[in-house]
């Protein structure tokens, strides 16, 4: 009798251990596989949409990519420091389903290129980890936000590490709640340290150039990547050629 109870307990414990290991594998590996595929697909849809004729801002919605559901992707974010081919969709909203599909735009914060703070959040680890290397950004690095009508080039101004409840970092004037914004800013948030949620890594940038999509040429991209500054292993060494229409 006792032997059987011990045997059962052992089997249950081993099963629980295997379940935990499976969960870790799912979280650290499988979510990356699924999310990276989804994010690349949305970027492709957006790029196609951007290149299409017709006025007005384009967006990829649940009609184009069912996983988006009621949300929408409306921009592509490129960071030369993260790699020449780094491109992630920007999705409206920062809840879990949206952050699994790209970089999330904090609803209510400024639109790209507008006066105020265009604030976005992204995973540091898992789910395609779009902001995995956020701590490698240095002042002067470029962050490019592409929308259908315009391409916005932001320049990193600095970073800070805050606690999760410090929402003042995404205020229209960061860290000055209630102040009237005059600058066009971008703020990126992610978790810190990696695999933890104790702090938030926050990087601020300000708009330095706005280029109409039709005039966004190869030289612009070269200039942007050159301006990324001296990189260590230089992820920006081989810039991806961009055509005037943004299609590729």
């Amino acid at each position, binding site marked *: 009798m006792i032997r059987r109870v011990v045997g*059962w307990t052992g*089997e249950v414990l081993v099963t629980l251990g295997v379940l935990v290991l*499976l969960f870790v594998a799912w979280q650290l590996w499988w979510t990356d596989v699924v999310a990276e595929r989804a994010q690349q697909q949305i970027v492709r849809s957006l790029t196609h949409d951007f290149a299409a004729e017709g006025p007005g801002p384009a967006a990829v919605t649940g009609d184009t990519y069912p996983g988006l559901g009621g949300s929408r992707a409306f921009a592509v974010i490129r960071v030369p420091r993260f790699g020449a081919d780094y491109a992630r969709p920007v999705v409206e909203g920062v809840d*879990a389903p949206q952050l699994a599909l790209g970089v999330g735009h904090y609803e209510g914060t400024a639109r790209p290129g507008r006066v105020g703070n265009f604030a976005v959040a992204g*995973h540091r680890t898992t789910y395609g980890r779009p*902001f995995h290397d956020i701590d490698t950004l240095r002042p002067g690095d470029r962050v490019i936000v592409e929308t259908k009508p315009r391409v916005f080039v932001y320049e990193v101004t600095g970073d800070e590490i805050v606690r*999760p*409840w410090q929402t003042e970092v*995404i205020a229209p004037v960061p860290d000055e709640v209630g102040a009237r914004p005059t600058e066009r800013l971008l703020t990126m948030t992610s*978790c810190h340290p990696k695999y933890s949620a104790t702090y938030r890594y926050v990087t601020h940038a300000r708009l330095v150039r706005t280029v109409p999509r039709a005039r966004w040429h190869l030289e612009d991209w070269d200039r942007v990547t050159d301006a990324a500054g001296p990189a260590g292993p230089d992820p920006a060494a081989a810039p991806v050629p961009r055509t005037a229409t943004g299609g590729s």
Partner: protein
Amino acid sequence: MYAALWRALPGPRWARAVQCLVLAALVVVVLFQWVFPAVAPLLPFNDNTVGG
């Protein structure tokens, strides 16, 4: 309980082994597809945002 499962499965040894593998694969699919995605938001280490 795994011994009971082994006894309950029909066929020769190799057929039982195959059935066990299929069952294990099914469990993994259910976990990856439905259970883990439902559990993940309840765990704290995926928060990247400030505020609520």
